[in-house]
């Protein structure tokens, strides 16, 4: 490995990372981070944004494994959660004056602690990738979760370990007590981590990681040890996961066992996959959309988990590239100026699927509200002014919408995919023509 990682080659990332359009994108990202809490400035929004920042780092670090290295991990929350626990303990020690660790450096402490966990766990997990890796990480995740139950001194049992983030001398006048200061701390670390992880994708090691994902055997034949490569990427990924976990712990001033449980690992997988694992932007989009929807939708509907599951299955079956790939495909057609030709069938497909989804949603909501008798019956409230207050009427409407939408969709789908394929092959041909 060491011969390929010479300084000269590492420096090659410089111009790639910072050509002019990239520079503008990074500036835009920084600007968004800077002004977001000024626009959404209510207390709950700023808290939500701080939490979102940590979640984005978490999903990006997860995609280092899933997207870059093709390693489907079910124990990623172990790294972020343990990072959070170490962060909280170091904060408590620092508050007592036993160690010197100002709050803004705490994420790094959690990150390094988690990287060491990555070194240890990597030995047992990284021998193979694919389904074997998935199964072993699932077991590791359970093991650590149960360990957290039986060692209450470190993990704090049911209640978790609490801390106070206001201690020591203020840094540049910031005590990190007010939520807005925590947000800017999170945003700074988010910026640093995003740059770091993006830079990683174009280092020689990042490329070898891709090679091992695509064909471990060939990578081995040209002299890279796939196990070593997987181990290294696991360590780097757990470093960033630990930073994310520490930021979450600073934000909530607590580290609890549920932060390293299977549900949180599953969340990383769901959000990252829905966002798109093939692009660097994917996990960011997935975290923003997923976190926003899970916060907002759960206010309106009790069936949120069901929708998330179905949404995920649809993406696995029909759009394995996630949301980003859908946007990119449409953008490609739009940029080639060919969108007008596909527009009629595009609109028909979108309208028909929206109709069918609306019908299905009405039925699901009705089922949930009749069976569980919940208060959150947004659909029933919607129907009350329309005169269809009885469930039977709404149910009939839902079935009608679903059937009509499905029938319409099956009719328009074929013309759309023909139009779409034709236009894309034309674009492909003209792109090839320009290159030669």
């Amino acid at each position, binding site marked *: 490995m060491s011969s390929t990682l010479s300084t000269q080659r590492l420096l090659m990332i410089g111009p790639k990372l910072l050509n002019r359009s990239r520079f503008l994108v990074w500036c835009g990202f920084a600007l968004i981070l800077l002004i977001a809490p000024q626009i959404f400035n209510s207390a709950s929004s700023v808290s939500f944004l701080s939490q979102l920042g940590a979640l984005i780092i978490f999903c990006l670090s997860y995609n280092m494994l899933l997207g870059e290295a093709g390693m489907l991990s079910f124990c990623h929350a172990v790294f972020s959660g343990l990072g959070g626990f170490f962060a909280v303990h170091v904060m408590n020690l620092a508050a007592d004056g036993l160690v010197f660790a100002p709050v803004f450096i705490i994420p790094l402490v959690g990150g390094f602690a988690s990287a060491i966990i990555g070194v240890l766990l990597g030995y047992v997990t990284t021998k193979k990738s694919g389904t074997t890796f998935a199964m072993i990480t699932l077991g590791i995740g359970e093991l650590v979760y149960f*360990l957290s139950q039986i060692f209450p001194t470190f993990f704090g049992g049911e209640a978790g370990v609490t801390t106070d983030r206001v201690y020591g001398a203020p840094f540049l006048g910031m005590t990190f007590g007010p939520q807005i200061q925590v947000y800017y701390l999170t945003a700074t670390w988010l910026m640093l981590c995003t740059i770091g992880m993006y830079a990683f994708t174009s280092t020689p090691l990042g490329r070898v990681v891709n090679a091992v994902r695509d064909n471990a055997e060939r990578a081995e034949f040209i002299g890279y040890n796939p196990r070593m490569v997987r181990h290294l990427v696991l360590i780097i990924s757990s470093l960033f996961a630990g930073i994310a976990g520490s930021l979450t712990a600073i934000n909530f001033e607590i580290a609890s066992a549920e932060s390293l449980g299977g549900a949180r690992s599953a969340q990383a997988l769901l959000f990252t996959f829905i966002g798109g694992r093939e692009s660097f932007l994917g996990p960011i989009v997935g975290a923003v959309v997923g976190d926003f929807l899970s916060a907002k939708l759960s206010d309106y509907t009790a069936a949120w988990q069901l929708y998330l599951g179905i949404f995920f299955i649809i993406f696995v079956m029909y759009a394995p590239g996630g949301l980003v790939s859908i946007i990119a495909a449409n953008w490609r057609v739009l940029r080639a100026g060919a969108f007008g030709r596909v527009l009629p069938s595009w609109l028909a497909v979108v309208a028909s699927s929206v109709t069918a989804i609306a019908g299905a949603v009405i039925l699901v909501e009705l089922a949930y509200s009749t069976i569980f008798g919940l208060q959150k019956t947004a659909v029933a409230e919607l129907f009350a002014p329309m005169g269809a207050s009885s469930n039977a009427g709404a149910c009939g409407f839902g079935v009608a919408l679903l059937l009509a939408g499905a029938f319409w969709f099956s009719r328009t789908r074929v013309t759309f995919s023909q139009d779409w394929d034709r236009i894309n092959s034309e674009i492909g041909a003209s792109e090839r023509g320009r290159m030669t």
Partner: protein
Amino acid sequence: MEYMLINLLNGLSYGLLLFMLSAGLTLVFSMMGVLNFAHASFYMIGAYISYTVGLRTGFWIGLIVAPILLGALGALIERFGLRSVHRYGHVAELLFTFGLAYVILELVQLIWGRGPVEYSIPKEMDRPLFTLFTTTFPMYRAFMMGVALLMLLTIYVAFKRSRIGLVIQAALTHPDSVEALGHNVPRLNMIVFGGGAALAGLAGAIGGNVFVTEPGMADEVGNIIFVVAVVGGLGSLAGALIASLLIGVLQTFAVSIDYSPLTLLAHAGFQVSTDSPAYNVLNLSVAEIAPILPYLFMILILVFRPKGLMGTRET
């Protein structure tokens, strides 16, 4: 002596239930390469269906209907879901079943509610089979063990001795050649996946009334059966049997042992003070660490014998 024997029997019967579950998982994995995350969900549906059908017809009809319905459900899921994901590779198939487990959990809660249902042991089986010294062994547990052994025999005959079993085994390594010989490989996959689901359904119908039939039951065994599959060696049916018996017995014994290293040291004459750093670790009794034992066992196997107990390839 009595304590040992009763624990051994309980451990064996729990282990055999684990085997019933992991057999389907192992079967689907070895024949299709699909790691089925929804397998424990099929087990849960099996318990619920058997309970619902049993309410009207009695336990025995429910016991037969549940695996049949689950087999049909599994075949449908393979035909209209899994098959279209197949071209994206095994990880995509795994993700599909992962999402499926989510959806099944929600649907089960929608249909049968969030609380447990009263799925009880049939009256004619609700009595002791024999008395060992002073403790009785329930007849239903023996029945459960019998079904598991019968299932092992059936799977063995169906896959090692029957014609269709040989074709399925050939399709695993050489799908194109098998297809060229005129066999319908996608249909074979459908049969295998349906068969795996049916086995899970049978396990649910039998195990649901020994344990509690509730929406959390899939999560409870879901991870353990993966451990069994890894320890036994991925894709090895015999390995799954040995591993599930080992883990079943290990867990049953561990739960009832209230000794910790501290008590052992005290017997040897050492006293560890409560503020020494090792106290918290040494004070843990075997019963307290029982839940993590299978996972520790799995890690030890991965370190010292990556093939698993009976596996033929490295995991």
